[in-house]
Each structure stands twice: as structure tokens, then as C-alpha cells.
């Protein structure tokens, strides 16, 4: 059974005790919140997601979207849920007040996103894509564009999309064929076909604003000749009143594995009116500006799915009676014990749980840096935060989603054969989660971004943004006896990460295949160590809390135990990854392509 209760206590622990967001009250956006307000926001978000979105998750999956003569109908209840969503102001949580938003910190946005994903990932796609479009226009739009589109996105009356992919190109966007012809009035005529466009057509909003990558007639070939255009479904006057239907059509929607309630559309532009967003031929750069947040958003999808799958599994393993505890029966009066007594079931549950809590810590850490990078008054602090984000983005995207897919499978496994039966909702989690490893750049592409772009940048400068704080933390705590069984394993795996980084840098220099061949293992190693660092921070926080008078001892003891589980049962994987990395790429490349 799909079960979800927003992990509010864990969230409060992370933001108040581990990351101490009180320390950031010098940032404007943080002035608006305090622990009391934050709790109210989280509770209201949990009410909405649990009571409105979760009940539509399985029905939305079985119904799917329906395509009828160019229109797309979302599943029953989605429109009402969307209206409740926008009425509550949730569509504009982190948008600027100037444009009708709530102006809250990214941290709050990230936390609420996780709840939305956990309860209904497909629903979350619609506002998720809108947020991407908002950010793009906010960062590179001119003032008229901002004035027209941003308030409409804020109140949720209009939604947005990202049109990158074409049938012959997904990863390699330099191959894009969609054309843009300049018109005398400064607008453009867009012609071409796009596929796989999420939220490309639907019935939730009165207008849909497509951001479309296309090529100008005189553009250089390849990736340097791509520009970005705003192409609305309905044209409007300057006040945002709709005028004519634009020449944009949805030709069909995909029949796909998961997130069935999210429409995935084939779009056709036939001399559609478009407006240049940002500079000519700088479309990819524009896209990359908002990529950090969009990719973190997909990482959060991984986390959200892993969380709901865990909760649903944990509940089941406490009720399902099979076999006896190997020590002594815990339920002698019943015919069998609940399966949660079995070590192997615990292995599965704890693998997922220890990931969820540390991945949440990571996402909050990243979100905090987004706020710092955007709003901090000090330019050095700002720059450091941006570098940290550039480094961590591919890791958050690929590691959180790859591990999440393993996790939802483990959660299904806890149900035995019943996990394979649709009614229980576990197989939906597996199907829904799978897409996160693919869109916004596949996991393989994230790994290449990490070793090919982020590692070498400024001679490894970005690495420092992670290595320095971890190194400092280890040095400060290594001699503390109370925590040495947590810090020692972290220190060892951190050394492996440093060794792997040196290996990739050195060998990748002489032969790029070495870096590329090691990239996925390297990213995973990096991810595992990062979550190890998160667990060490939590263990340290909880240890000091244990000594406080009114603290919740059980809560903090559990955190320390879970931290030890992670150090003992997950972190050792770094050894095998290091071996795989340093074995090199020779065996990958030695078989001729024709012999496959």
C-alpha cells in the first residue's frame, strides 16, 4: 500500500540542528522565516500533499493522460488538485515577490518539492517544468518578458515547458534542426518538431509557454548555433490577455513506462510566433544557467520516490507475518513473526533509509548554497557557493536517481510477490522512478560532466569546495573517541576519493577514454562519500544533542546508529569502486564494435 507521512521531524532536525539555517538570517530571503513559520509551512504542505495528491497517485497512473484531437486531458481530479495547489500559493514558493511569488528560500522549495514527488511525482511535473521556465526567463529575459510571463507563472494560470529534444537528438543538442526565421517586427517564426516534451499540452492551465531551442538562418553549425525562444500556445497582449492561438500543435502523447499522468508530447511548430530569449546563438548557455536547479530538481525526484517507497515498505514489513526470528519468536502467540525481524529484510530497509536521510541532508546543503550563490552580499562567498553547485550538480542528479532506482526495487522486494501486483502500488514506484535517470541528461552524461568539465575546471579548483570542508571536518573530529567509529571509515573512503580523483586527472589527461571510462564509477564513489560526510555531520550533531537535557534521546540515538550502519554497510563499496576505476578503460575498448 502506498503510504506517506511527510518526514517533518527529520526535516526540522536537518535545517535547525545540522545546517542551522538561523545562521543565514543575514540573507534577505531567510528573514521571512523562523522555525515556527517553517513548521507551519511544512505542515500545510504535508496536509496538501498527503490528503490531495497521494489519493490521486494510483488512479492517475491507471488512467493516464488522454489525447483527443490535439487536446490532452489529465486524469480525473488533477485539475481540482492543481487549482487547490495554485490557490495555496505553492506554485510560486520560491519566486520573487516582485513577480507575485512568495520569495521564500530555495531550501523550503526543495523540501516541499520532495513531498510533492513522494505523493505524486507525475503531478509535480507540471509545476516543475513551469519553475524551469520561470527561472530561465527570470535570469535571461528582458524586462517586458519578465513582466508578462513571470506573474502568470507565479499564480499558476500559465505553465511552462522545455523544448530541447528532437527525434534524432537528445543528448547531442548540437544536431537540432528546428528553425527560427526573423520577422520585421523583431519576432521570429519557429518551424520544426520536438518530441518527449513534458507538459507540452494539458488541461490544467489557460496557456502554455514553450521555451524552444532552434537555429537561426545564419547560425554557426553545432552547439554554438542554438538560440532559445519563447513560443506561447496562445499569443497575448502586453497585459497578458489571450488573443490568438499560435501555430503550435500537440500531435500525440507517448505511451510510456511510468509517470503516466504527466503528458509527454510530440510538438509541431509551423511558423509559430516566437520571441528570442537571451542572446542569439547563446541558447545552450541560457539553458545551462538554469540547469543546476533543474538537475537538482530531478535528484529530488529520486529522493522523494525513495522516501515514499521506504515508508510503504517499512509499514508492510511490520505487518507481514512470515517465518520466525532466528533468535527467539517475537510473536509466540501468532503463527509467525513480522518479516522486519529478519536480518536481510533489515538490510533492505536500512539501505534505503540511510540513503534517504543523508540524501535529504545533501539536497538541503545544495539548496542552501543556491540561496547563498544568488543572494549573499559577499562576492567571494557567492563565488564559492556557485563553484560548489557546479561540482555537486551532476552528483546530485545521477547519484540520487541511480541509487533511488535501486532503492525502490529494494522496497518492492520487501513485499515479495505482492510487490509485483499493481494494487499494492510498489511497481508504480519502480516505473515512475526510472525516468529520473534519463531526462535532464542521462546519468552517463552527468558522469562525463563531472570528469570532463567539473574536475579539470581551473585545475581542479571546484573540487576544493567539497574537499576542504570534509578534510577540515575529519581533522577536527578524528581524535574524538566518541565518534571515531564514524570518522575513521569516512576518512578512509575520503582518501579513496582523493586517490581516484588524482588517478582520473592524471590518466584522463593523456587519454580521455580513461576519464570517460571511469566516470560513472567515479561519480558513484563521490556520491557515496558525500552521503558519508552527511552522516558524519548528523552523528556529530546528534551526539551533542544526546547530552542536552530535553532532547529526544531515542531520535538522536537512532541517527547515530543509522550513521554507523552507513559507515559499516554502504561506505565499504568505495573500495571496489576505486579498484574498478584504477583498472582503467582498456578492457572497455578492446572489443571491436562490430563484434558486439
Amino acid at each position, binding site marked *: 500500500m502506498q503510504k506517506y507521512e511527510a518526514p517533518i*521531524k527529520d526535516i526540522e532536525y536537518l535545517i535547525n540542528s545540522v545546517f542551522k539555517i538561523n545562521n543565514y538570517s543575514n540573507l534577505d530571503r531567510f528573514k521571512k522565516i523562523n522555525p515556527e513559520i517553517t513548521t507551519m509551512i511544512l505542515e500545510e504542505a504535508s496536509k496538501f500533499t498527503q490528503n490531495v495528491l497521494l489519493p490521486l497517485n494510483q488512479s492517475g497512473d491507471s488512467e493516464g493522460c488522454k489525447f483527443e484531437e490535439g487536446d490532452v486531458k489529465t486524469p480525473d481530479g488533477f485539475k481540482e488538485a492543481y487549482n487547490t495547489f495554485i490557490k495555496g500559493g505553492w506554485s510560486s514558493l520560491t519566486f520573487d515577490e516582485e513577480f507575485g511569488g512568495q520569495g521564500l528560500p530555495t531550501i523550503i522549495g526543495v523540501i516541499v518539492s520532495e513531498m510533492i514527488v513522494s505523493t505524486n511525482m507525475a503531478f509535480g511535473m507540471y509545476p516543475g517544468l513551469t519553475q524551469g521556465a520561470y527561472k530561465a526567463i527570470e535570469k535571461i529575459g528582458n524586462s517586458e518578458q519578465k513582466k508578462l510571463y513571470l506573474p502568470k507563472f507565479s499564480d499558476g494560470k500559465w505553465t511552462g515547458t522545455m523544448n530541447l529534444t528532437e527525434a534524432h537528438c537528445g543528448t547531442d543538442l548540437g544536431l537540432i534542426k528546428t528553425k527560427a526565421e526573423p520577422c520585421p517586427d523583431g519576432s521570429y517564426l519557429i518551424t520544426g518538431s520536438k518530441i518527449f516534451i513534458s507538459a507540452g499540452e494539458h488541461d490544467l492551465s489557460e496557456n502554455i509557454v514553450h521555451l524552444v531551442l532552434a537555429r537561426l538562418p545564419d547560425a554557426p553549425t553545432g552547439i554554438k548555433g542554438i538560440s532559445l525562444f519563447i513560443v506561447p500556445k496562445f499569443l497575448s497582449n502586453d497585459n497578458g490577455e489571450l488573443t490568438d492561438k499560435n501555430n503550435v500543435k500537440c500531435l500525440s502523447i507517448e505511451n510510456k513506462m511510468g509517470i503516466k499522468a504527466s503528458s509527454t508530447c510530440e510538438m509541431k511548430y509551423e511558423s509559430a510566433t516566437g520571441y528570442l530569449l537571451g542572446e542569439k546563438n547563446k541558447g545552450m548557455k541560457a539553458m545551462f544557467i538554469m540547469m543546476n536547479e533543474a538537475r537538482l530538481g530531478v535528484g529530488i525526484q529520486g529522493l522523494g520516490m525513495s522516501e515514499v517507497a521506504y515508508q510503504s515498505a517499512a509499514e508492510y514489513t511490520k505487518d507481514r507475518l512470515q517465518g520466525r526470528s532466528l533468535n527467539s519468536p517475537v510473536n509466540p502467540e501468532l503463527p509467525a513473526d513480522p518479516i522486519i525481524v529478519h536480518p536481510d529484510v533489515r538490510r533492505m530497509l536500512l539501505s534505503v533509509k540511510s540513503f534517504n536521510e543523508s540524501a535529504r541532508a545533501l539536497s538541503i546543503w545544495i539548496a542552501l548554497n543556491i540561496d547563498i550563490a544568488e543572494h549573499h552580499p559577499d562576492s567571494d562567498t557567492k563565488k564559492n557557493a556557485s563553484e560548489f553547485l557546479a561540482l555537486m550538480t551532476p552528483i546530485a542528479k545521477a547519484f540520487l536517481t541511480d541509487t533511488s532506482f535501486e532503492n525502490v526495487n529494494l522496497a518492492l522486494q520487501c513485499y515479495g510477490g505482492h510487490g509485483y501486483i499493481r494494487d499494492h502500488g510498489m511497481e508504480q514506484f519502480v516505473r515512475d522512478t526510472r525516468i529520473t535517470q534519463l531526462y535532464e541528461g542521462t546519468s552517463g552524461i552527468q558522469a562525463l560532466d563531472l570528469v570532463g568539465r567539473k574536475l579539470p575546471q581551473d585545475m581542479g579548483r571546484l573540487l576544493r569546495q567539497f574537499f576542504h570542508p570534509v578534510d577540515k571536518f575529519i581533522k577536527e573530529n578524528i581524535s574524538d573517541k566518541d565518534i571515531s567509529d564514524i570518522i575513521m571509515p569516512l576518512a578512509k573512503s575520503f582518501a579513496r576519493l582523493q586517490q581516484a580523483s588524482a588517478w582520473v586527472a592524471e590518466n584522463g589527461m593523456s587519454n580521455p577514454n580513461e576519464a570517460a571510462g571511469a566516470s560513472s564509477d567515479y561519480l558513484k564513489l563521490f556520491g557515496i562519500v558525500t552521503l558519508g560526510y552527511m552522516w558524519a555531520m548528523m552523528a556529530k550533531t546528534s551526539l551533542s544533542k544526546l547530552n542536552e537535557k530535553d532532547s529526544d534521546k531515542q531520535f538522536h540515538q537512532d541517527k547515530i546508529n543509522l550513521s554507523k550502519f552507513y559507515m559499516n554497510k554502504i561506505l565499504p563499496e568505495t573500495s571496489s569502486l576505486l579498484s574498478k576505476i584504477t583498472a582503467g578503460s582498456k578492457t572497455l575498448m578492446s572489443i571491436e564494435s562490430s563484434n558486439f
Partner: protein
Amino acid sequence: MKVLVAVKRVVDYNVKVRVKSDNTGIELTNVKMSMNPFDEIAVEEAIRLKEANKVSEIIIVSIGPKQSQETIRTALAMGADRGILIETESEIQPLSVAKLLKEVCDQEKPELVILGKQAIDDDANQTGQMLSALLNWSQGTFASKLEIEEDKLLVTREIDGGLETLKLTMPSIITTDLRLNEPRYASLPNIMKAKKKPIEEKKPEDFGIDISPRLTTLKVIEPPKREAGVMLESIPQLVDKLKNEAKVI
């Protein structure tokens, strides 16, 4: 016209409560608390009256521990105007609550008080009725519909076997039933606004009311566990058991 709404902080309705090991009550440490669901309906009804311009001000009162402030804040985020917290850490029973609310009514002079018909922690279902007696005001309990007609209240009540509609002369006490309305979700802008709305803090002593309990709880225990069932071989065996063991047929 002013409306007073009384709200109570109780164990969240989703929580599976556990009895304390010493049988003195329910385990409350680290348990999620929220507004009594019937009180949420009371708040919602008051807000709807205000939106229909029948009411000018909504005052929220809560009696309980310091954290009841959060419960008041939730009502303010839904749309109420200001709050009064009467803070006490001791156990407080319906009669004391009614007496305190009477004092508040004497000061604030509302024309309407809306309460939940009961709180889901003790299910007493007494406070509204007692308050009505203490104030000598009309009462409409278990309301499933409420209308204001000039200076009269039309209250539809859920009673055994049907609905009853009363016409009340104000000032009145209303207690809410589940079907009265569906409470709204607080919107983000309203949550932010609620931060600035005033909450007055008082103590029971400020009203000179003795809140010491009149009833003593002897012990609290779990309901008996359901015994595991037995599988029967045949229908005749079932009939036999129903006749001779259960003696129901």
C-alpha cells in the same frame, strides 16, 4: 458581529496512540499534535461567515500548554483575526474550559461562539453545552448547516434518524459536526500574514477561575486484543457454533 472560536491542541488524528506503561494516560512525548478536527470545521465556518460579510472579527481562543500557540497560529493562517492563549500545563476538564470561555465571552462580548462538538482526545462532548448553560445563551449542537437570518440563526442539527432545524436567538453557542463544511488549506501568503497577527497571552488565574479537575482518571488501558480466529471446516459447523457457543441464533 464578533465570533469567538475555541480550538484545542490534540494528538493528530493520524497518530496511532499508545497507552503509557504506568496506565496513567496516553503517551504524548514526541507525538504529532494538531488542531482538533471538529475545531478546524468551527474555524472554517467562522471564516465563511466573515467572507459572506456576516461577521466582522474572528477571535480564536485556546486553553492548554504553550504550544497551543501553534494551533492558534494555524487558525490565524486559515483566516482568523487574532488569538487568545490561556496557558496552563495542568489537566483541564470541560467544566473548567467552559468557565474560562465564559470569562472570555464576558470581556469580548461576541454574539456567536463556535466550538467543535467534541475533542478527539477525550471525546467528552460537553464544553459547548456547559458554556451555553453558564452564559444562559441559546445553543445549537452538532450543526451540519448554519445560516444567519437577520438577528436569528438557522441551525440544522444531526440527530438520530434525521435532521432538525432550529431557529435561535443570538447570542448563541454552536458546536460543529463533521458535515458542516470541509476546512480549507491555509495558503502560503496567509501563513506569512499570520506571523504578524496578535496573540494575547493569559493564565487561568487572570480570570480567577479554579481549574482543578473534578474527575479523577483511575487508569487507562488498551482495548483487549482481538483473539486470533479459527478456520471452520463447514457451514453446519459454523451454524452449530453460532447456536451453541455464541448463542446468537
